């Protein structure tokens, strides 16, 4: 559940978010749209706990151990292999049956064959798929995705469509995208930032 009231974020003199009010109920799927610079990424970072509001209130449930986040950066160590990266996060999030969970996600995202390759040697689309695996690794209750389709080819986008459809109603989803029509049938609401 996310509840924002009068949410405001400034970076120096620049006001990125101004008096934002919205609520996302548990199990809801809110898509955030808006032009470049409208504050989509800032809003998602606030909800993930990576930034603090300048004014207003923001309540987010659950705590950070149950939040999955995939932003613009894949948050992967380039010198580690796919498996090592996911193992690292799996250990930090204390994922039960970690190896099986990682193997299953890699299969689902079509990355099993690349598991021993270093992240630096993979294509942008593959890296984005691993970033999505990372965000889903601990079966988060709240999943926050910033432009999740960026860099994905048709196969990758289809996998993500399927994943999003599969987790609908089991998880709370907050997704920022330039292409809201793609996931429109899945969403329960739209927040348009100007």
């Amino acid at each position, binding site marked *: 559940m996310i509840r924002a009231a009068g949410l405001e974020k400034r970076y120096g003199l620049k006001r990125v978010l101004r008096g934002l009010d919205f609520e996302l109920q548990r199990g809801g799927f809110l898509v955030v749209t808006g032009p470049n610079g409208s504050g989509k990424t800032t809003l998602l970072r606030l909800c993930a*706990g990576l930034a603090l509001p300048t004014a207003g209130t923001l309540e987010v449930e659950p705590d950070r151990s149950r939040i999955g986040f995939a932003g613009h*950066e894949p948050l992967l*160590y380039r010198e580690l292999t796919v498996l090592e990266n996911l193992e690292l*996060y799996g*250990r*930090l999030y204390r994922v039960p049956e970690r190896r099986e969970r990682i193997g299953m996600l890699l299969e689902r995202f079509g990355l099993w064959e690349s598991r021993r390759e270093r992240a630096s040697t993979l294509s942008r689309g593959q890296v984005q798929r691993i970033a999505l695996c990372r965000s889903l690794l601990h079966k988060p209750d709240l999943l926050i995705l910033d432009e999740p389709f960026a860099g994905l080819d048709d196969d990758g986008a289809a996998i993500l469509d399927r994943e999003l459809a599969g987790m609908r109603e089991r998880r709370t989803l907050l997704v920022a995208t330039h292409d809201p029509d793609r996931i429109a049938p899945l969403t329960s609401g739209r927040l348009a930032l100007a």
Partner: protein
Amino acid sequence: MTRYFGDTAVLARKDLRLELRARDTLPAMLLFVLSVLAVFHFALPSGSSRLAEFGLLWVAIIFTALLGLGRAFAAEREQGLLDGLVLAPCDRSAIWLAKGIATLVFLALAEIVALVAFALFFTPVGWATVAGVVLADLGICAVGVLLSAMAAAGRARELLLPLLFLPLALPIVIGGVGASVADHPGRYLAFLALYDAIFALLAWASFEYVVTE
């Protein structure tokens, strides 16, 4: 507590593995400390005092440490990875402790080479110098990793780290040189231990505020 040290071990192992793969930091530190000691060997007039010789050793140690600290958060900074660590449900001070352990390993390896080179170029080192170096390393890593994280978040990070670190390293130089040349080095070693305790506690407690906005 087991969980805390488990997270620290996972993060420290990751940093050591990254260094084994990339070899960015340790070779540079080794080359730097050898080069600096070689330069000092030729720059210092023959017959110089022990105080001058050990003073230069500690200058070399501090600048070598600075080189390693500058790379402590390089992967996180260059690849925007700090968010991933901050998001993880581990105590954020475990990130500081893990980085400190990894930096300590690199610094200790560089200093083994440095002390051998110092003995060859200048004069053999005694137990008090070695004890001083060990204690100084703890303080350097405790303070340095915190400042490195602060600098990584800033714009002029290459300038910021030395500007923040060198004034705070002054007590380490005073304690280290004192322990190396004094007849009774005990009080200098105690001074270094006190510095370690105070700054480790401060850095441990404040790290969370440095890595979160």
